[in-house]
């Protein structure tokens, strides 16, 4: 029995590990996703040719913007998002996936575009911006999007966002102060101003190298084609 004991323990640990990965790694589904919306559109009519809109520059947004990746990357993706909009929540893992696949070839910018139809969009944007003032915008951005269903129906979202601030190690008192500061308000205003100048009236609105991506092309399979096209064009320059 003693001879067999380590093998039994090894098999036990293997079973627990495999079980945990299979059970706990089921992706969280969000309704109203751009992927499902686009898929249903695609089924209704022939798949659209992956084309982008005309080049638009607009007025500058908040400076410095929240970015990921090198500024010299051949593909610049700029998202105008509202933390409370479900398709924005669904687009978050898609963009994350693109970043994993393309890495340093992408330069991603997130711009605040809280829509008036959403009660908590401005507090959510303020929370992300306040986290940004302590260098943790992307951590807060991820938490807010991934827990969208946990806070969007809440009456008062401030304690929830303060909980996230604590979770990512922010100075909570400073976070509370910054959330209502003029600087945060100004950043959201400037991003919104940029959105208006580019004709953005819904979220998520995404630009690739300053050209608007039609909403139905936001699922990963079509987004990939657009990114590949841009990479090809950049390599031919």
């Amino acid at each position, binding site marked *: 029995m003693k*001879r067999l004991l380590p093998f039994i323990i*090894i098999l036990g640990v293997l079973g627990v590990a495999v079980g945990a*990965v299979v059970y*706990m790694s089921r992706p969280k589904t969000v309704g109203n996703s751009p992927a499902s919306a686009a898929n249903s559109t695609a089924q209704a009519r022939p798949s659209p040719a992956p084309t982008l809109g005309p080049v638009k520059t607009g007025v500058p947004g908040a400076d410095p913007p929240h970015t990921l990746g090198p500024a010299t990357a051949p593909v610049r993706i700029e998202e105008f998002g509202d933390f409370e909009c479900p398709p924005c929540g669904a687009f978050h893992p898609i963009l994350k996936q693109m*970043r*994993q696949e393309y*890495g340093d070839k992408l330069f991603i910018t997130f711009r605040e575009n809280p829509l008036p139809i959403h009660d908590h969009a401005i507090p959510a944007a303020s929370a992300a911006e306040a986290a940004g003032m302590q260098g943790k915008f*992307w951590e807060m951005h991820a938490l807010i999007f991934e827990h969208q269903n946990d806070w969007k129906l809440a009456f008062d979202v401030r304690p929830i966002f303060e909980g996230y601030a604590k979770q990512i190690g922010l100075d909570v008192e400073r976070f509370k102060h910054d959330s209502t500061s003029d600087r945060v308000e100004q950043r959201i205003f400037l991003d919104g101003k940029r959105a208006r100048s580019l004709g953005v009236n819904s979220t998520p609105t995404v630009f690739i190298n300053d050209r608007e991506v039609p909403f139905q092309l936001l699922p990963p399979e079509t987004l990939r084609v657009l990114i590949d096209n841009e990479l090809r064009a950049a390599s031919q320059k």
Partner: protein
Amino acid sequence: MIGIFVVSVENTDFRTTTKWIYVVATVLALVGLTDALYLTIQHLSGSSVPCSVTGGCEEVLTSSYAVLAGIPLAGIGAAAYFSAFSLSILAAFGYRSAAKLLLPLVGTMVLVSVWLFYLQAAVIRAFCQFCLLSAGITIALAIVVFLAWKKGS
């Protein structure tokens, strides 16, 4: 497969101190396995990893270096820690060939950890606390395994 290999060379004439050193290695490998499994699960479920100490988890874990040939790096780490765990526990039970295999495995893990630390520091320019924990465990594991090997040889 590891088991089949080591069963044939079982040797129960291990000194008690060496066995206990391998027990420590087993525990360290189990902690490393838990850390790597957590990151694997977060990666596969598309969840973010809260980073309260270093603040760079999102940058590191969504970078292109987080995936190798379509496999999450954390999953490869979990496989390495599971192998280290299996070999350590077998070594603790007196399977000497498991002890011999453990040294090159942990050596490779240290080299990979050094490379990943370099990537975080110089390329991605952000640190992920769970990755640093894994590097720390690997180094501790290497020290323990080396001590056991010195005592056993």
